[in-house]
């Protein structure tokens, strides 16, 4: 596309419309993540296409295309007629192929950058939770850390960890932090729980480390230790990022 000047090219890159494909990818990713995280349950009906497009802030065309993809993945089913609509078919476990594909498509830089964001978010949430948490909320965090420790499948671990992180932000009395934490979990939360190239022991070690990390975070929050809680949360985020980068490189090594 010819530009009058380099400045014009930059302006379009910054202010130009999102390519349609980028938007369809984003919608599909969001819905897949929400299904994987268990926010939309098996058999649950999605809002009508018009309502969904409006609430997502996208065109019905983009939404429809995203649903076509989800249908092809077997994640949703559309029934026509009187009691028709689009219904979720939640798989029993994480959709490994899709997640590996997405992790492969990211760069190590993007993973580290998202990790920085996650550290900032969860660090502050943890610190504020330690300052503002009620006894009941602290007990709930302990219980959720226990749920993560007891979770056996990748999907269970992902959901337990996701819930835990959102609950820390809630304990911090922060709507925005909870919302951002949820978005991050939907976007990138599942991948860290994958087992790649049959390395089951690595996945088990990661699970054990994260379970212990979340347990310590719950304790720091419950005992009103803001600095300790923040430090622990940042280290948990860092461990997760290291895991993602490690899996990413392992996937790359797979290619011929």
């Amino acid at each position, binding site marked *: 596309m010819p530009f009058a000047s380099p400045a014009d090219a930059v302006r379009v890159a910054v202010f130009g419309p999102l390519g349609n494909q980028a938007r369809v990818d984003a919608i599909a990713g969001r819905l897949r993540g929400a299904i994987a995280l268990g926010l939309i*349950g098996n058999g649950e009906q999605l809002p009508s296409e018009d309502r969904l497009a409006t609430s997502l802030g996208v065109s019905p065309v983009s939404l429809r295309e995203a649903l076509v993809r989800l249908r092809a993945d077997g994640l949703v089913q559309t029934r026509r007629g009187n009691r028709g609509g689009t219904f979720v078919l939640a798989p029993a476990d994480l959709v490994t192929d899709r997640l590996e594909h997405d992790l492969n498509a990211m760069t190590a830089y993007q993973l580290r950058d998202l990790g920085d964001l996650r550290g900032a978010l969860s660090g502050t949430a943890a610190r504020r939770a330690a300052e503002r948490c009620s006894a009941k909320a602290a007990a709930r965090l302990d219980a959720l850390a226990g749920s993560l420790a007891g979770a056996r499948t990748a999907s269970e671990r992902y959901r337990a960890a996701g819930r835990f992180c959102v609950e820390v932000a809630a304990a911090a009395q922060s709507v925005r932090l*909870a919302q951002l934490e949820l978005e991050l979990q939907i976007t990138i939360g599942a991948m860290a729980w994958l087992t790649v190239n049959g390395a089951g022991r690595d996945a088990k070690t990661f699970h054990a480390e994260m379970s212990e990390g979340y347990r310590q975070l719950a304790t720091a929050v419950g005992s009103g230790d803001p600095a300790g809680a923040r430090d622990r949360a940042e280290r948990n985020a860092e461990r997760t990022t290291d895991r993602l980068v490690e899996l990413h490189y392992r996937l790359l090594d797979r290619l011929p």
Partner: protein
Amino acid sequence: MIARFATEYAEIVAGARHVGDPLRRATLAPLRSAIAAALADEPRLVTGAGVVVCPDLLGDAPLWLEWWTTSAPGPPQPLRPNLDPASVWFYDYTEAEWFTAPRDTAQRSLVGPYVDIGGTNDYMLTLTMAARLGTEFLGVAGADIAIDSLELVVRQHTRRLGAHAILVNTEGRVIASSTGQAHPGALLSASRAPLLERHSASACPGLPLTLLVAR
């Protein structure tokens, strides 16, 4: 307002039983006009209202809420949290203080402020009272108050005091404040003794709240 729903809810249940109709989610639909009217009546303060059903009262759902919110622009929307006990996002309202307190005591309950994860996802207070048919507990009737709305109302009233004031709940959590020394959501614990000493406390009649006014 809440007492009206509680009464109407009990009447609906009594009426259905009297004619031998099974109690179902649809049985509660007549409550909607009263709920909508209440939301329209107090749009500044109330952002949600309705009834939350006692477990296993309805034949077609073990748990259920007939609760509508006005947090989004447009007509009131039904609140539909995750009621699947197997899900990690299970909105277990039977463990929520706003449900158990009216159930276990004869009093109204004011819970919050709290972030309602899985419900409205907003920061708010919830006022509830038990709905009973005789001694039978049917659930609770209640209303949500968004913290921002409450802050504006409190500000108007405390301005007349001519001194800094902090409104706290039974936990010592700040609900509203006219001083930057106490942020909404902060816990005023024993560690804030110097601040507390500079304020005189008075109970708010009929509500489990304390108003701290600077001396």
